[in-house]
């Protein structure tokens, strides 16, 4: 994991996620304008109880707020999928826990 990815993961840890998957998609965007050197495209799937009762916009804001100072440099883009544990884990998995 790159240093930048680690930094993002560290920031998102404050949302107390039960699951985080952070992908560095930078290579796929190499060479397009605004992504100098092909750096800085990330996507994150984050699952947290924090999102319970929060509408979509508020969830994305919660994530973006934590990395706002990194955008647009060095983070050019951060795709976000934010779920509550109930939404993310299938019901049969939950009952098995």
């Amino acid at each position, binding site marked *: 994991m790159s240093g930048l990815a680690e930094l993002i993961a560290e920031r998102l840890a404050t949302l107390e996620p039960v699951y985080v998957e952070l992908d560095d998609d930078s290579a796929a965007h190499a060479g397009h304008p605004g992504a100098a050197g092909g750096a800085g495209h990330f996507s994150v799937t984050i699952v947290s109880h924090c999102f319970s009762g929060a509408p979509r916009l508020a969830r994305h804001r919660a994530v973006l707020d934590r990395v706002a100072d990194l955008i647009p440099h060095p983070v050019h883009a*951060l795709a976000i999928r934010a779920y509550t544990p109930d939404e993310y884990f299938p019901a049969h998995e939950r009952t098995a826990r």
Partner: protein
Amino acid sequence: MSIQDKIREQVKGHRVVLYMKGTPQFPQCGFSATATEILKRCGVDEFFSVNVLADPDLRQGIKEYANWPTVPQLYVDGEFVGGCDIMREMYQSGELQQVLGAKKPA
């Protein structure tokens, strides 16, 4: 007119506004291309689009107006809806079609 006033006028003056990189005919960013495609699939062929690459002040201004750091940004009836990910999720759940189809309250 300040940039913030200009943005307010744009989003209040048009039912559907998309701030994007490039144009609907020639998007210059994958996320803006996706946003355009989603609007088309929702049956919105005509919308007010603004190419933020053509206006650095506006590009900065929309980030402050919506308190949202990234592009694209969708507005419907003057309300900030979200960026590309939110548009995709709302499209997949059918919410976006509802928002776009609903008549503006009198």
